[in-house]
């Protein structure tokens, strides 16, 4: 019998969505994830999926995610990704992955300067990955966003490479799936809300799928990601 993948959630000083991520993983797989401390040297043996949760690691000092990206556990996360292991970074976790060089680009201050906390529609740009195979290509989903620095920025060559290789995971859009204008909450280049690495085993996104897993809090569009990740 194949057992469900084993998940680990990394806890940095200032992380605050680790409980939400753990709940989403447990709902999908029936098993709680391991919680790994930032100063640990190794991931639990047999870890298949590492999640870097949202929050304000190290108080967002220097740059969002900059200090967490240099934490001791990140060497193990880097090795895990190099082996083809899955890594998911949500919000501050996305910022950390960019700062760690595991994903391209940087998350800059929102163009409108304000911290944004609201529901946001997204278009699934690539539904053929381990993270998004539970969605349909082009599907419009609704997740929560809550960030002050989500303005995805990358040089022109890097942007072209992302687009060419299908590595844009999600784009901000309106309820009909149309992108641009007011549907882009933070000024991100090409409306990018999430990106993959070259091997599609590392995903970072600003929106919070872990917060949309229960009809009581406004929707369940985040479930498909955790179900896909929990499937053996």
């Amino acid at each position, binding site marked *: 019998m194949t057992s469900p993948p084993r998940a680990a959630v990394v806890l940095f000083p200032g992380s605050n969505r680790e409980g939400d991520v753990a709940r989403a993983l447990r709902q999908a797989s029936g098993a709680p994830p391991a919680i790994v401390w930032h100063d640990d040297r190794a991931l639990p043996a047999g870890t298949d999926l590492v999640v870097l949760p949202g929050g304000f690691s190290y108080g967002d000092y220097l740059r969002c995610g900059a200090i967490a990206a240099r934490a001791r556990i990140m060497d193990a996360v880097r090795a895990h990704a190099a082996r083809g292991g899955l890594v998911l970074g949500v919000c501050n976790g996305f910022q950390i992955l960019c700062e760690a060089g595991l994903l391209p680009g940087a998350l800059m201050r929102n163009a409108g300067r304000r911290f944004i906390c609201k529901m946001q529609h997204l278009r699934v740009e690539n539904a053929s990955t381990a993270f998004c195979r539970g969605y349909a290509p082009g599907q419009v989903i609704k997740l929560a966003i809550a960030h002050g620095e989500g303005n995805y920025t990358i*040089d022109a060559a890097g942007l072209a490479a992302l687009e060419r290789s299908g590595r844009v995971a999600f784009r901000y859009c309106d309820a009909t799936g149309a992108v641009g204008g007011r549907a882009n909450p933070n000024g991100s280049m090409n409306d990018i809300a999430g990106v993959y690495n070259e091997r599609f085993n590392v995903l970072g996104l600003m929106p919070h799928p872990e917060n949309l897993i229960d009809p009581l809090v406004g929707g369940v569009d985040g479930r498909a990601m955790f179900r896909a990740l929990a499937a053996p």
Partner: protein
Amino acid sequence: MKTRVIVTLKPGVLDPQGKAIEGALRSLGVDGVASVRQGKVFDIDIDVADRAAAKRELADACDKLLANAIVEDYAIEDD
């Protein structure tokens, strides 16, 4: 040895904080402000043999942590 590192946003990178400061300066009646870009200054006391060694270590610090090369440039100040 007392040293100073200055980190600035690369030209063309959007700087909403700089824009807000620019607007505030204009509204305070500061004349002739064409644009404002906000950066960071790090005053670092470093214990090395000479200035050349300090520069090497500080460049290493910038590459590893102090600056994000995707969006920022850095300069190590000479006395």
